[in-house]
C-alpha cells in the first residue's frame, strides 16, 4: 500500500481521535495541577449550554416593541442585556475570557445593512448568540466577507440594492457585535414572543433578514450536554 493512499485515507475518515486524547490529557493535567477545578469546568459548561440565539432574539423583539428599551440597548449594550436576563459578567464574575469587554448592537436601517465577521480569529458575541456557526469560523468566510460581501450574502440568498450601504464590521479587538435587523412587514400587533421567534441567529449576524413567514428553528446545538 503506497504512502499516498494511506495519507488520503486518514484525511477522508476524519478520525480526530488525537484531539480527543489531547483534550483529556490537557484537562486531567490542568485539574491535577490545580490550574482550574472540575467544578470550574462544570460551571462554565452549564453557562455555555444556556446561552444561545434566543437571548439575542429577546433583545431584538423587545427593542422592536419598546422604543425606550431600544435606545438603552443602542447606548449601552451590556447594561441593557441585564433587562432580559443576560449578564455579560457570567459565568466567572468578570465575563467569559474570549467574549467580554464591550458589546454593541448594530441597528439595520433602510440605508445601512450591517454584517459581522472576525477576520483574525472568529470573535463572536456568545453571551447573546451562543456558539458561533461553524461556517462563521471558516477561513473562507473570514477571507471573503470583508472584500466580497455582496457575493457572500447572495450565497446566503440575501440581495440588497446598490443604494443600501453594506457595512462590514471586522471585530478585530475587544468589541463584540450583534445586528438588530429591521422589523419586517406583516408583524403588526405581534407579541414579543411571536416577534422573537422570527429573529433567527443568521439575522443577527447579518447574513439573513427576518420574515413574518420564517420562525427560528431549534437553536443550533451547543454540542453534547
Amino acid at each position, binding site marked *: 500500500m503506497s504512502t499516498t493512499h494511506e495519507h488520503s485515507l486518514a484525511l477522508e475518515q476524519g478520525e480526530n481521535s488525537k484531539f480527543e486524547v489531547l483534550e483529556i490529557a490537557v484537562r486531567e493535567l490542568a485539574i491535577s495541577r490545580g490550574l482550574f477545578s472540575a467544578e470550574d469546568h462544570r460551571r462554565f459548561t452549564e453557562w455555555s449550554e444556556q446561552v444561545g440565539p434566543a437571548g439575542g432574539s429577546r433583545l431584538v423583539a423587545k427593542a422592536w416593541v419598546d422604543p425606550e428599551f431600544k435606545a438603552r440597548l443602542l447606548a449601552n449594550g451590556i447594561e441593557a442585556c441585564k433587562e432580559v436576563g443576560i449578564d455579560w459578567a457570567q459565568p466567572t464574575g468578570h465575563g467569559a475570557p474570549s467574549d467580554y*469587554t*464591550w458589546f454593541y448592537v448594530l441597528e439595520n436601517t433602510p440605508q445601512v445593512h450591517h454584517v459581522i465577521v472576525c*477576520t*483574525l480569529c472568529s470573535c463572536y458575541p456568545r453571551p447573546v448568540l451562543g456558539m458561533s456557526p461553524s461556517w462563521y469560523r471558516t477561513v473562507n468566510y473570514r477571507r471573503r466577507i*470583508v*472584500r466580497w*460581501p*455582496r457575493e457572500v450574502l447572495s450565497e446566503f440568498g440575501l440581495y440588497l440594492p*446598490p*443604494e*443600501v*450601504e*453594506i*457595512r*462590514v*464590521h*471586522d*471585530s*478585530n*479587538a*475587544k*468589541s463584540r457585535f450583534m445586528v438588530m435587523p429591521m422589523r419586517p412587514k406583516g408583524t403588526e400587533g405581534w407579541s414579543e414572543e411571536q416577534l422573537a421567534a422570527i429573529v433567527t441567529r443568521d439575522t443577527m449576524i447579518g447574513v439573513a433578514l427576518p420574515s413574518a413567514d420564517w420562525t427560528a428553528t431549534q437553536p443550533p446545538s451547543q454540542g453534547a450536554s
Partner: protein
Amino acid sequence: MRKFQIGDRVTVKEGTSLFYTRVQTYTRGKTGVIADYRPAWVIPEDEAWGRDDGRKEPFYVVRFNQRDLWPEYKDQNDTLETEIYERWLEPAKEEAK
C-alpha cells in the same frame, strides 16, 4: 487626551509587525474616517505576550469606503469598520487627485 476626534480622516500606518498583529494587512496604508471611540485597552503587542498590565492606548472605530480598500470594488456606498489603536494611526496623508 485622544490624538484623534470623530470625523478626522486617518491613515493606517504601514510598518513592521513581526510575530503577531491585530492590525490587518488589508488596512495598512489605507485612509478612512474616525467613526467612534472605543475605551482604552492593553495593546495586543503586550496582551498577546501575557502582559495583562501592559501599555494601554485609546482605540478607535475607523470606517473605510470599500472602494478605498479594494481595487476592484464597484459599489460606491459600501463601507467597512474595524478597530485600530492609536499608535497605528496618523492624520490622513494628502492624496494626489
